[in-house]
């Protein structure tokens, strides 16, 4: 097993599949009356969150607690971080407290890589800047596999602000490793340079959502921040929505079996219409539930639970 999960690129197909299979076992547990496993009793998991993220932090916290780990939540707000303590000094503090795993969310790309130089424990990337969010990709893959029965050969459209999206990067890497075919869709300004060479040779790029939908098994809508239009990435929220938003009319172009995903938080009416988000095709709530199982699997395997 790998020691850290800093990038979805750290995972080969066998390891990724092991995590997904383990997550399925963990999910079965959540149907039981007593949801707790003793697997990580006596181990310490630190949630080190430099960015606000209720959803991801709670998900990791629930995962660690269901495995009986001791959980320490360390958020930048109200801690010594706001007094200007460096990441390195914080890392040394956590090291001294004997953290077995540090789950880090940070606004700077690569912060988990830096952290892993300074602590002995496992580092789990819970989202770093515009780089990656590997556990999100794992829970997305888990969701696709449980809804559609497979990942190999699946056609996945990832739509929106790929340039600034850590979810997109991790998804392209992981899905390609697991044999799915990813098409990145968005305005050219939001598709990063050399993305195919950078992430996966099997990835495709399209600027036309309507032409991609009829041949997609999965369409994953990324959050688009309206502030981006101030920086000339697109002219207005309405134009973005007209060209790249998923509304009911567009959803009808999808094949019967196709699902609609969103990592959240959603901008209803911007990249996704409320009717689509709440439709039976939508897996958005499922994704959240699956997040806990997948993160349990990641912590369990990284900390040598097997």
């Amino acid at each position: 097993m790998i020691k850290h999960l800093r990038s979805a690129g750290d995972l080969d197909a066998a390891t990724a599949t092991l995590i997904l299979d383990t997550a399925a076992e963990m999910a079965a547990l959540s149907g039981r009356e007593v949801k707790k496993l003793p697997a990580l009793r006596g181990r310490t998991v630190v949630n080190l969150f430099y960015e606000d993220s209720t959803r991801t932090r709670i998900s990791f916290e629930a995962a660690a607690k269901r495995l009986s780990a001791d959980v320490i939540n360390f958020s930048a707000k109200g801690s010594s971080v706001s007094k200007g303590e460096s990441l390195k000094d914080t890392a040394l503090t956590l090291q001294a407290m004997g953290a077995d795993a540090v789950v880090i969310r940070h606004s700077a790309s690569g912060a988990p890589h830096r952290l892993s130089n300074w602590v002995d424990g496992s580092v789990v990337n819970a989202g770093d800047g515009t780089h990656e969010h590997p556990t999100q990709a794992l829970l997305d893959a888990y969701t696709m596999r449980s809804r559609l029965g497979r990942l190999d050969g699946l056609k996945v459209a990832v739509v929106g602000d790929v340039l600034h999206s850590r979810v997109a990067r991790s998804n392209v890497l992981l899905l390609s490793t697991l044999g799915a075919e990813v098409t990145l869709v968005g305005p050219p300004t939001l598709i990063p340079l050399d993305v195919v060479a950078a992430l996966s040779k099997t990835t495709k790029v399209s600027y036309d959502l309507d032409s991609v939908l009829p041949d997609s098994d999965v369409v994953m809508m990324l959050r688009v921040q309206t502030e981006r239009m101030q920086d000339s990435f697109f002219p207005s929220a309405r134009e973005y929505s007209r060209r790249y938003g998923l509304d009911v009319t567009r959803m009808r172009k999808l094949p019967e079996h196709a699902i609609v995903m969103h990592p959240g938080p959603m901008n209803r009416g911007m990249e996704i219409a409320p009717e689509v988000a709440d439709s039976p095709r939508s897996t958005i709530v499922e994704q959240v539930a699956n997040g806990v199982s997948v993160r349990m699997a990641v912590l369990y395997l990284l900390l040598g639970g097997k």
Partner: protein
Amino acid sequence: MAYLIKGVSILGAEPTDLYISDGVISAPVEGAEVIDATGLVALPGLVDVHTHLREPGREDAETVETGSRAAALGGYTAVCAMANTSPVADTAGVVEQVWRLGREAGLVDVQPIGAVTVGLAGKQMAELGAMATSAANVRIFSDDGFCVADPKLMRRALEYVKAFDGVIAQHAEEPRLTEGAQMHEGEVSTRLGLTGWPAVAEEAIIARDVLLAEHVGSRLHVCHVSTAGSVEVLRQAKARGIRVTAEVTPHHLLLTDELAAGYDPVFKVNPPLRTRTDVEALRQALLDGVIDVVATDHAPHAVQDKECEWAHARPGMLGLETALPIVLSVFGPRWDLIADRMSIAPARIAGLEGHGGDLTQAGTPANLTLVDPAAQRIVDPAELASRSRNTPYAGMTLPGRIVATFLRGEATVLDGKAVK
């Protein structure tokens, strides 16, 4: 003090005896101290047109004295100190302070560079004439670290310095294209999720500036050229007869953006490390003379400014003590080329008389360095004379050892150690 440098090979020629007395290359004299230079090559003392000495302001990262020592150990006899100190070297007072500190250290000639604009802010021209006529005798002006982005201001600066044969050294970076930029824009920046610094941001400014220099009939120097596209712009400009010179750093001749993969900010520099294609183009340009000189862009940084997240780290790398070994490793022992690109041409661009002279002529000021090309060295940051440790070459084995350096006939380095 007189020296007899015995059996030295001047620029790779047959071994000969070289006498130094009264600060110059001389005829044989009695009583000279003998230095056995068997196997050593003599080069004119290296000249760096782009050094950051950090004093005044960041003496925790480097001082004029520690930077001078690093320079002498690297084979340099003159360095041009960039203006982005605190306070900025934008007045006669500050450039004279740096010049005086250099004299006091006495290890290399420290030639201050003056800022083009007040506070490097790019708004108002600094008193360039006052700096030119000060004791520091400034001839190169640069806002390095920042681009003189305003085209009108750049045009005026190019024109204005003609009155005292000055030159503007441009840090070519269109600031609107590099907002938030962290590394070269391309495959690697996309993979790492770091904001890209596109090559065109450099190329567009160089293209604009060579045309401005042509229009007003002025001399332009381009700092740290880093892209293949910039090389093409310069090649065309030179073919048109425009008076432009350019420098390349050792790190841009050797390292690529792939090194950012581990997010270690020791590899963060501005302009950023580029691709293998750019590295190859820069090497060829230096061979062809499209790029005139190797300049270190020696940029010391305190530990805390590098031991942090990539995005929070300051850009810059140490260079003085490794420049010649890097150039040797890239081009091999092509001594005439090395002497021209690292001593003769930079001395000419900076207007430093007495540097880059002909070591075979009696009367030439004795500014020279002796190199053992057969020796190899593993770069150990702890052993560097610089006050900072941010070398990107840690652990690398590099050819060439600087055995001795002489400044106007006085040894500044002997047996690989600084004399003071």
